[in-house]
């Protein structure tokens, strides 16, 4: 083959390989959802020369030029000012049992007014809410729900608490703070369900504004975080420590994905770290994985695996260890760690008997940590 022919063929091949990408990126999306974006200045960023900014909300520290967006896709630099595009723009609103979040030691048996905007600052391959977390805000149908309205809506639905959940509430930080402050005035509690990718300074502000935080700890391995979450473990552990130090109510959920993050040694390390840094009273939920999103072809977690991890955690000294997504399992219920009696009966998301009196076990009077009323 002559050189000219080879070059022609290679050029054609390159063009044909690149065509689909060029074509796709030039097409506007079909869904002509009228973009419903906000333009509220973000609170955690630094202005830099040449209209650049550095976001300081989460450990990514996105360094952005004019018109660029952060990794989360919901914050944008416009002429040197950083804006959140999802302030007051909710795309998912529900009334859920608080046990669904799950919070087991916080107002058991009550309802949580749950909401989310689009966006997330990580990319979990197993995200249950990928349709709103792994997209840009222009791709979801959002409607306006100002902070004051959040509180009123929660009241109308007889919810004593508001949960910022589904996606990653850190990315709608300003909205979450303002909604929390507004709902506090009405006597409502505020709960955050987060992956924990947040910097210390905004986390301090968040802790002052809300009443409970549940952290989704995906694994106790940096490699897992890098491979399956596109994030880092270390900042999450720092966030957990800070939450505990500020005496904010904390629960931890560990989604157990078979063979990926269920190694016994890893779980023991996690439990020992929790005992050392947080203490034995932090509720730890081992949640059963259901195939989802990009990991739809993995098997669900076998129940014996969850039971094994549950035993390990109890052996290591954690007092309140639960198994989630297995309705009817006895490890859904709370047992007094001192006398062993059943003190909060749960089946699925429903609470049965509660054997507590003033936050103490009715049988042996031992204090049971939590927010019970």
């Amino acid at each position, binding site marked *: 083959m002559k050189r000219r022919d080879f070059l022609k063929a290679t050029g054609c091949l390159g063009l044909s390989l690149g065509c689909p990408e060029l074509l796709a990126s030039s097409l506007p999306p079909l869904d002509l959802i009228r973009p419903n974006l906000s333009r509220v200045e973000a609170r955690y960023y630094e202005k830099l020369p040449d209209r650049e900014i550095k976001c300081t909300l989460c450990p990514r520290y996105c360094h952005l030029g004019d018109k660029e967006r952060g990794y989360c896709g919901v914050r944008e630099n416009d002429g040197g000012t950083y804006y959140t595009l999802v302030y007051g723009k909710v795309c998912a609103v529900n009334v859920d049992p608080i046990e669904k979040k799950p919070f087991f030691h916080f107002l058991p048996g009550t309802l949580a007014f749950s909401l989310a905007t689009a966006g997330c600052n990580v990319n979990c391959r197993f995200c249950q809410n990928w349709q709103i977390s792994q997209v840009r805000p222009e*791709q979801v149908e959002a409607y306006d729900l100002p902070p004051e309205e959040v509180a009123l809506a929660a009241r109308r639905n007889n919810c004593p608490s508001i949960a910022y959940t589904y996606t990653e509430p850190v990315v709608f930080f300003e909205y979450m703070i303002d909604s929390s402050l507004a709902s506090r005035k009405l006597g409502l509690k505020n709960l955050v369900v987060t992956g924990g990718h947040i910097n210390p300074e905004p986390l301090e502000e968040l802790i002052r504004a809300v009443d409970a935080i549940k952290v989704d700890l995906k694994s106790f391995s940096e490699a897992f975080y890098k491979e399956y979450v596109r994030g880092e473990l270390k900042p999450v552990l720092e966030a957990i420590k800070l939450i505990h130090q500020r005496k904010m109510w904390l629960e931890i959920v560990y989604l157990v994905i078979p063979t990926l993050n269920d190694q016994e040694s890893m779980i023991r390390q996690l439990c020992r770290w929790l005992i050392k840094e947080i203490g034995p009273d932090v509720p730890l939920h081992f949640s059963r994985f259901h195939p989802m999103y990009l990991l739809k072809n993995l098997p669900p977690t076998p129940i014996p695996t969850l039971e094994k991890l549950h035993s390990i955690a109890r052996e290591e000294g954690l007092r309140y260890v639960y198994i989630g997504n297995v309705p009817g399992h006895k490890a859904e219920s709370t047992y007094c760690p001192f006398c062993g009696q059943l003190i909060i009966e749960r089946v699925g998301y429903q609470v049965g008997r509660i054997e507590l009196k003033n936050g103490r076990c009715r049988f042996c009077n031992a204090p049971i940590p939590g927010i019970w009323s």
Partner: protein
Amino acid sequence: MSQIIFPFLLGFFSLSTQIFLLREFQVQFYGNEVIYGFVLGFWLLWGSSGSLLAPKFRLEKRHLPLLLEIAIFLPVFVFPCLRFVRFFWGKPFGESLGLQASFFSALGCCLVLSFPFGLLFYLNVHFLQGNLTRVYLLEALGAALAGLTVDLFFIPNFSCWQSLAILGISGLILIFFSNPFKRKLLLTAAIAGFLVLLSLLDSQAQKVATRPFPLIKSHDSPYGRWQIVKIEDQITLYQDGLAVASVPDPAEAEEIVHFALLQRPEAEKVLLIGGGFSGAIEEILKYPSTTLDYVEIDPDIIPLLKSLLPPEKQSIFESPRLTIHHLDGRTFFTKRDEIFDVIILAVPEPATAQLNRLYSREFYSLIKRHLSPQGVISLRVSSAENYQSPALVRYLNNVYATLNSVFSRIEIIPGDTNIFLASDYPLQIDLDFFVSRLDKYQIKTRFIRPQVISARLSPMRLERLKTRIASVSTRPNSDLHPRGYFYYLAYWASQFGLNETRILEFFFRIPASILILLPLFLVAAIAAPVFISRGKTSWPSLPLIVLGFTSLMAEVLVLLWFQLRFGYIYEKIALLFACFMFGLFAGAFIGQKSSLARISTLLVDQAGIILILIVLLILLPLQISSFVPYLFLFLFGSLGGHIFVLSNLPLIRESRSYGLGYGLDLAGSFLGAILGPPLFFPLLGLPATIISLLILNASCLLVLFLGRAYRHERSLF
């Protein structure tokens, strides 16, 4: 003898390798029409490129046996790469691979495997001193026999790698002993050795590919590859790389069964189509008055699974209240008269035209004839609990619209999966209803109970899902307009990112009138450079491009038509395909008579294609006798083979054009593969696709006619 064997082996190995490649792709990626389109399309494209570019490689006749041996050897390299392709893309076992990964993987694999076959065609014509017709005849015969032997003998009895090895070694022996040039025993033996290694390493390679999950069993059946992975006491069943069910996993089984059966808890006859191994059978038999008919198309799967279940679970398959039928779901209804109280469809989602048959208006109408007046049907589809994206909403709306075109009452259970219930009799899905029924009939469940489903059935979620689904409007999915699988594919693609969805959804926006004319423009785009570079002498080759496009689209369309009318029967699909190839052989055989090498013959052939398409268009919606699709395929093949031979005659005057006609034919087929099932069938529908083919072929006839009149030539020589 080599002048017979070499062209025959070209056809045989080209098709057999293609079949195994498609099956392997099905396992490693996801078996949907877009993926099939990529593999088939790139196979044809690279084969075409090999044929067109062959003159530039300065190949000689003596290279022919060596190139054949290389073509037999290449799967030894490509198939293991394909088995572990996910590691190349950085994706572990269990993670889905999207359109981008499948596009480039198909492009790469087909380049390596198919390009040599294109070269081989050219070289064979050289070897036979320009007797292209003979090469084509023998190639068609080889392909026809490959289709029959692979589908009817090798796939049911051996794995892909084993089959490649057995066939490859047989081919090497034939090549070696018929080689008229210098024989290279060492090379042949080395290739044979590698093929043996390939077959021996198959099961080990599967185990490595599924790590870290322990693979305990693998079985290739005509319906796909079944693999079983075991962790603790839980076994998970995979079909073609897709997780189908886990045992025990009562959540799934209960969801499939109880939302439907609690509507009619005193049902006497229940039908379950698919999904029996998730535990659904056990759940159905909790209702004491029920007898169950279970339809499972693959007879291999139940014995495979039973052997791994504990004895108390195995015994459920021996229940006197259970009858198992090994049939396609639609075929079951055409062969049986029973009336059922509840019909549960636990089939895979409509990812292909074949699966789409189980989601069409006609199928639901067929089901309704077998449903009692108060009967209920249920089916389950993917969804999202908290927010339904526009792509998902369109898909769900289409399922709803299709059911609604047959049944007057539809209810939808929200959640990460949606359960659709349909009936002409009232349905209820509020929490109190299910609670009271569970209580009254003492049905013991773990997941379908108030403590778990109360959040799922909250009035807010029920209302919002209804509103979301009603916010768009799609036309019902039908057999002849299988739009359902396109909506599903667009939703499936959306999980991989924006670009992949955009490409698919772009085609939604093209008006049907433009889409119908699209083949005309694309064929002109391929033909133009040929006419420009070779002048007006090449105009009789235009039918080759049109032929390639038409025959591939028509072949797939008729295969689909057969399945719509008679169900999916694996052996019959193989026979249908062989019928087409024998037709090619017959047409090419007749075409080699020089007295017929006239322009007018070409015009008659082209007119014949048009006539067959018109008859196909008329018969499409009608009930037909089972021999009719065979006849159509034979006729398409015959005319196609005849046109191929005639159109090539002006080209083979020059040896540099030996591969040109074949290349153009394959280029046309490439367009057909990429556009046909993935786009035209669902977006235009089958009748409009035929109209598009009619316009294309009529335009071709016009060009031929004008060209003949202009040149005043009668003969193609």
